[in-house]
């Protein structure tokens, strides 16, 4: 287990060895703040909260997280470094966890850089800080779930473009399952309990709870299970 650290460190610092990190962080900031301001009506809503910021995150992550996750394993396969990595004295699990936590930490860094937005809200009004903290926590957990799915898909190919497209598609399904518009359509021909069940498989209902400041253990368990399941499959795919 102690072998996770060197992998994590190399991977995390690796983001800053190329322009990718800076491009990603800037796009993430501009897009999330831009959506909140111009589409979400951050100021018009006239309320001291980050609701208009968080509401777009499941959609933003849909493209941004596959962009980070696509290279995790595909790049190692393409460059042949996977052979180097797996002939070093570490286990497959060490490598899977090291890479996952490095990329997750990088995403959480991006998220943390949006914090001036929260400070602005605090300066303009009197927000409920508990709700804001819940939103950030939920967003970080949700990012982990998207990322775990992308890590799994990246391990199936040596082509990063394929890994990206698969990541968008699979995550899109997970977003759609819990999207109110889609659930509205379903309720036209499915009984309510069935629709609820389907909705609960998706990201949005669980994230919404966090964004409202509700910390329900079942929402933690949901994101935790998605991460654990995806990483287990990732491990199995690499062990084959």
């Amino acid at each position, binding site marked *: 287990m102690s072998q996770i650290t060197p992998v994590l460190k*190399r991977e995390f610092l690796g983001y800053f060895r190329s322009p990718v990190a800076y491009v990603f962080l800037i796009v993430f900031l501009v897009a999330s703040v831009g959506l909140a301001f111009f589409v979400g009506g951050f100021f018009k809503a006239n309320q001291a909260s980050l609701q208009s910021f968080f509401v777009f995150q499941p959609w933003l992550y849909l493209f941004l997280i596959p962009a980070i996750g696509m290279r995790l394993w595909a790049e190692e396969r393409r*460059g*042949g470094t996977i052979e*180097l990595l*797996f*002939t070093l*004295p570490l286990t497959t699990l060490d490598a899977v966890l090291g890479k996952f936590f490095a990329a997750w930490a990088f995403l959480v860094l991006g998220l943390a850089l949006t914090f001036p937005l929260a400070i602005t809200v605090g300066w303009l009004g009197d927000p409920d800080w508990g709700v804001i903290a819940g939103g950030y926590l939920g967003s970080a957990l949700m990012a982990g779930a998207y990322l775990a799915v992308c890590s799994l898909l990246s391990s199936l190919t040596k082509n990063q473009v394929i890994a990206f497209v698969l990541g968008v598609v699979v995550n899109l399904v997970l977003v759609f399952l819990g999207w109110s518009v889609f659930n509205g359509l379903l309720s036209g021909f499915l009984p309510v309990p069935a629709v609820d069940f389907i909705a609960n498989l998706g990201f949005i209902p669980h994230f919404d709870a966090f964004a409202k400041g509700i910390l329900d253990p079942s929402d933690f368990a949901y994101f935790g299970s998605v991460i654990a399941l995806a990483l287990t499959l990732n491990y199995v795919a690499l062990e084959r």
Partner: protein
Amino acid sequence: MIEVKGLVKTYGNKRAVDGVSFTVRPGDILGFLGPNGAGKSTTMKMITGYLRPDAGTATVAGIDVAKDPVAVKSRIGYLPESAPAYGEMTVVEFLNFIGEVRGFRAAATRREKVERALALTHLESVRRQAIETLSKGYKQRVGFAQALLHEPPCLVLDEPTDGLDPNQKNEVRSLIKSMAADRAVILSTHILEEVDAICNRIIVISSGKVVVDETPDAFRARKPGARLDAIFRDLTSADA
């Protein structure tokens, strides 16, 4: 030191390695010869724990690689074919990463190991250069430095002189010789002069099977007066 018994590996319906057995003792430099596609790399990948054999065993210092891969990996220095490395890292960053995974957690010890490896492979002048900007010869040396950093009892080198110019080849050969004293070394090649220059044992492999296992002198005595490559051609013509 390295003991291989009845190794078999099949890709789809192609048997790449078909019952390969041999032993390498400390002090041996084993030349692993065969035409392209004979199964040299596949055999090495099974010894180093990158691929799981379909049948047979590989043990290093009495440890079965299938039973305790991490223990075996920590005793081997492996230079995979074409010396893969993380191109965006500098030489020193990369070797530091290897040192960390190899268990040298104290910065001072690690620096010492890295400096020693840099000196042995004459990499000091490019230490701060990104690996992807290095010439083929230097990249190969980085692969070497990585393989011998932890002073392993076993070295597995897959075509270590491939793509080097004659001077670099000579340099690599004397490096291998100097390291071999109390180590078990396997090096694969399809160049005969190489074996003649440094190996004290020859194994010829053809279509996944060992066809010769003897000393260079015995090999030469097979057809007195003939050039080595003529003997080699006779032995492996089935592959063409």
